[in-house]
């Protein structure tokens, strides 16, 4: 599959994303996410409430995170044994979502409380985990629950030797290697890894680096959207936001737009800039620093403009 992918994107381009918060009435926080018009999901966060008696948390004083995933319109491969397959897929996704999101919530401030996250995937084309994490992170941010950081996520596949970000379902089916990552950029902590494929030590580290850089990019843009939402005086900004501004192909450095292209740069929100990214902790520093972020170049979004039909889908 030479040149761009099916829908004209560069290998490292992510699909255009449409996002809206405050979609579910009555929920403490909610968000609607749409990736490339083929993955649509709604996440609603029901704020800190009393832990119910059978909460299985280790000690009754701990906070309990209760994640549920619903795939009401599961079609295609989940169809034939929708009974077991559907619920099993829902269960594993819910477990992964909980693992990914829990570290970003300040648990010691929500003692004896339970936070309930309901994620409904209306349609999915490509990995489910990444959009679920993004949408949940937005819903949490808009629900005033104390967080350590915004949780970002990225999925990377290798198809015929080429690294592709944000794969569609077709590319996922043909992937030789696949890495999904949940990452807190300003704390520089990975909270969830799911990888399947065949790597040597070095190539796996590079794959992880690519994924982490993807997450960092995403955080800058998530932040700019939330700032807009914040300035909107509480009314959720009603327009769509294309992800990952910037241009240029993978190898050659894109024109102009450097790494911090996402509007005004929030103070040191990128990574731990003052700590060299990978100093030789524990004497195992045998990987020479290959400036992976240069190799990754700018993440480019396919600049389709989203017409009015999409915009009014869930206007408040």
């Amino acid at each position: 599959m030479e040149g761009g992918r099916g829908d004209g994107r560069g290998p490292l381009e992510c699909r255009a994303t449409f996002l809206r918060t405050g979609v579910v009435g009555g929920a403490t926080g909610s968000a609607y996410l749409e990736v490339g018009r083929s993955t649509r999901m709604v996440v609603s966060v029901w704020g800190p409430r009393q832990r119910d008696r059978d909460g299985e948390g280790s000690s009754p004083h701990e906070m309990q995170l209760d994640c549920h995933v619903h795939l009401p319109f599961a079609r295609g491969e989940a169809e034939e044994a929708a009974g077991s397959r559907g619920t099993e897929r829902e269960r594993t996704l819910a477990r992964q979502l909980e693992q990914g999101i829990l570290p970003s919530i300040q648990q010691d401030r929500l003692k004896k409380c339970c936070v309930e996250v309901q994620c409904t995937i209306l349609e999915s084309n490509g990995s489910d985990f990444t959009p679920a994490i993004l949408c949940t992170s937005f819903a949490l941010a808009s629900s005033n629950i104390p967080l350590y950081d915004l949780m970002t996520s990225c999925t990377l596949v290798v198809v015929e030797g080429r690294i592709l970000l944000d794969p569609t379902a077709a590319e996922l089916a043909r992937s030789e290697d696949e890495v999904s990552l949940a990452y807190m950029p300003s704390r520089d902590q990975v909270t969830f890894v799911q990888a399947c494929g065949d790597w040597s030590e070095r190539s796996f580290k590079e794959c992880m680096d690519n994924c982490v850089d993807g997450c960092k990019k995403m955080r800058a843009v998530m932040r700019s959207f939330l700032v807009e939402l914040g300035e909107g005086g509480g009314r959720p900004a009603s327009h769509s936001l294309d992800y990952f501004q910037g241009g240029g192909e993978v190898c050659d450095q894109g024109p102009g737009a450097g790494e911090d292209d996402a509007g005004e740069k929030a103070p040191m929100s990128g990574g731990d800039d003052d700590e060299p990214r990978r100093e030789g902790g524990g004497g195992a520093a045998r990987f020479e620093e290959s400036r992976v972020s240069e190799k990754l170049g700018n993440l480019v979004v396919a600049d389709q403009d989203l017409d009015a039909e999409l915009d009014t889908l869930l206007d408040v």
Partner: protein
Amino acid sequence: MQEAEAFKRLYPEEYLDRFLVKDIRPDGRGLRSTREISVHASPLSSAPGSAVVRMGNTTVITSVELGLFDLGEESVAGRLEHELDVGPLGTTHNNGSIARNRQQTSAVSGRVRQILCRSIDLGSLKLSEPGEEASPGGGKAWALHVKSVCLSLDGCLFDATLASAVAALATLRFPRRLEQLGEDAAGEDGGRPEGDGALRFLWVPACTAVALHKGRLLVDPTDFEESLASAVVAVVWGRRADSPGGEEPEVLALELGSEGQRASVDAQLVRRCLGVCGGRGTSQRLAALASLLVEDIDGGEADGMMEA
């Protein structure tokens, strides 16, 4: 603002009465005004027919799946099943009962199915083989699996579900040839089968609910008003599909539930209800749904702005 919220939580009845005395409602609407309904056709690209309906804070998305089944000797019409899923509302939803109460959701879904069966010409679902003449028994017919998911609930679950199911069925397009259904199921990039056959409607139904609170009628109640109401009347109005502009909408179904000890409901009150909720609110909703039938479905968008 916080004190008002606390007062509402502790003394809900008094809170609502303070508003009703001045003939307005907590969300600023008049007693007679329905909420703005926005119908959006085919949001799901992978489903033959789908629609999302927003009425205020109540959002229901519906998708229609097609199936084929062999007709028995005597039955001549297609089949329609409806399923309602309120799972996403979770257990914390303030009237937690509906999320947990399997019975209430299946009762709502049962009523929606009854009304859909009456308002669609199920006979048109029978597939007449192009070659042989349409024999009475035998042959194949379409089975419609309508699945609705309530994403956000703020009162009138039945109204929103019915409207979204009707809109989804209106956007439904049957694939032209039988074998296309085969490859449609494994739709390569999930594109909807472009077919021309649309569903034939007999009636275009739209429901408006009225809540009775201490003698006052509140049209299109929110969750808060529904929980305090002593009686709820749900009237399903319908217009004949072939003459949308035509005469007065007819009553397709009437559902009334009242707590005898708190409300005295008599024929006179029901007449007032029919009068009140038959007004512009309902005709706007009927117009919004009817427009979906007529216009072709390139993702059309019908907005029934309604402010009495």
